């Protein structure tokens, strides 16, 4: 996974509440399109008209914001389905950081699995960022210092869980790390087989 430290660039504004992962990426696209190509299908219901024509009012259809690495969203962004393809489609679109008042929880988890930084800020702070960035001025998000540098030179701090932050900074893969604890996992399982035998009634299939 790519490490994240500083994300700098313009801000696409999609401040609409409860924008769900079905709207971010249609499920059918996930069974037919390569992960790296999903960007062109992100938000397709909002981005294209009935005949497939690009809606000029949609930020990712505008030259200035077509590659915006920072997405500013509404409340409960990424609610609904657990499909990780929602994050993959945003990564493919070039998004590395999403700022919203709140996130769907599974989507929020999936961001961290894919090197995307989700930042929670109050509505009024987001509105002040919007006022400064709507003409394409860039933000600089520093994960290490947990600060956002605004176009006017002011700095806003943000909170992030320390474990999450460190994993993004290091580009850490949890699987490798957990596998180093395999002895503990087996020991826990051995005592659990005694304590809760009903969990362990099945053997491997075909064995």
């Amino acid at each position, binding site marked *: 996974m790519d490490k994240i430290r500083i994300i700098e660039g313009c801000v696409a504004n999609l401040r609409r509440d409860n924008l769900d992962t079905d709207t971010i990426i249609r499920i059918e696209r996930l069974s037919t399109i390569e992960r790296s190509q999903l960007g062109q299908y992100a938000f397709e219901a909002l981005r294209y008209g009935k005949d497939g024509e690009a809606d000029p009012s949609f930020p990712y259809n505008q030259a200035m914001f077509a590659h915006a690495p920072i997405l500013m969203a509404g409340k409960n962004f990424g*609610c609904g389905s657990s499909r990780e393809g929602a994050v993959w489609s945003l990564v493919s679109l070039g998004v590395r950081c999403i700022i919203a008042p709140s996130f769907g929880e599974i989507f929020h988890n999936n961001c961290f699995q894919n090197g995307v930084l989700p930042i929670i800020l109050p509505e009024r702070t987001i509105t002040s960022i919007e006022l400064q960035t709507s003409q394409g001025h860039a933000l600089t998000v520093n994960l290490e210092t947990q600060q956002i540098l605004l176009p006017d030179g002011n700095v806003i701090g943000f909170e992030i869980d320390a474990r999450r932050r460190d994993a993004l900074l290091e580009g850490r893969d949890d699987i490798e790390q957990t596998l180093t604890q395999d002895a503990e996992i087996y020991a826990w399982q051995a005592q659990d087989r005694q304590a809760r035998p009903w969990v362990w009634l099945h053997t491997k299939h075909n064995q």
Partner: protein
Amino acid sequence: MKARTLLDKLWDSHVIQQYENGWALLHIDRQLLHDLSGTASLNALSARGLSVHNPELVYATPDHAVSSAPGRDAFTYETGGRLWERLHNLTRQENIRFFDIGQQGHGIVHVMAPELGLVLPGLTVICGDSHTCTNGALGALAFGVGSSELAHALATQTLKQRKPKSMRIRFEGALSADVTAKDLILYTIGRLGASAGTGYAVEYTGPVIRQLSMEQRMTLCNLSIEFGAKMGFIAPDQTTFDYIKGRRYAPRGDIWDQACEAWLTLNSDGDAQFDSEVVINASDVGQMITWGISPEQVICVDQNIPDVDASLDDSVRTARQAAAEYMGLTPGTPLAGTPVDRVFIGSCTNARLSDLVEAAQVVQGQHVAGHVDAWIVPGSEEVKQEAQALGLDVVFKSAGFEWREPGCSMCVAANGEIGRSGERIVSTTNRNFVGRQGPGVRTHLASPRVAAACALAGVITGTIGG
């Protein structure tokens, strides 16, 4: 000892290692795999040269992308067939049980898993599917994850998770006749909003819960994620034990007795403190139906679509306007009487035997309106066969419904079964999002009873009153 919530008991009993800030390495007792996320996760493991840690705790079934057409096979929907093939081959390679289409045990993952006795009280259960919360109805800590977290669990039989906050929703009073768990949870989501549960694990309690059947409890828990709660559960009781006993993979004999004894301790202590408490009076709930594009946009069938006026908060007004526009509806006017093009009765929310029985009671001896396409998609092979044994297939077919094969079908529309743009569908499913049932399709969520009534009338209607 400090009084503990059910969440505390479920959580603490699975901690292998405790980290800072509420993070823990949790043991996972069951993984359920389906043809989209399950296939993706197994592919990810195999690409890294890793194998499955405990294949005996993993169970797979193809539900999302298989056709529901009568007489279907795995390749009736070709794209789905390729996913089916990979799931079939990878599970065989890893010695994972695979419940194939047409076989006993096949079905929508959250219908077949409880039905087979795979989900038990006190277990941690995950699936790459947000409606895994359904399984909380049995007193399990069950939640949806993305395919990366699922791959982590397959490789290690654990997950790193941060403990959620606790919320208790207590349902007082009693449900009126013809009002179901679906109506109750839609009403609750309407009251609380689509993100009220974010960051919480929800325990549903109160006299109303104790009266609900296991299948109704599953319907209720299924919609936890629709107000943001990754997990929602109910303390197990005699209803739970009666449901599980004798199922194919359920414990038997001495181990059954030992398990029941342990399961009786799975409840919140009387003086346990919750981070959030909600009380809902179930007697206030009528037959509910969504009018908009979020499950929180829900009304009683006989109410008007909410008005959009200047007194509203900006974001609420904008959301309502966008929803009314997408849905082709006028704020402030009645929803009842709006013509319907399709009715879909199915999904992990409402495709169990009791759901089909309820719908059949409404339909019995009548006929679907001429302009309506109406489908019944049973939740599993077992539901299908039991319904057929009761003659429900005949009731539905003679009323003009299509009686189809089990799977997710039009709930998630991943198998090519989608509505046409502009069509209005009354659906017993869980999401009314923009384009969920196909680009431009307008979805109204309701109970099987209400959906059946709409199919007959050809317009939005309920079964209570005029």
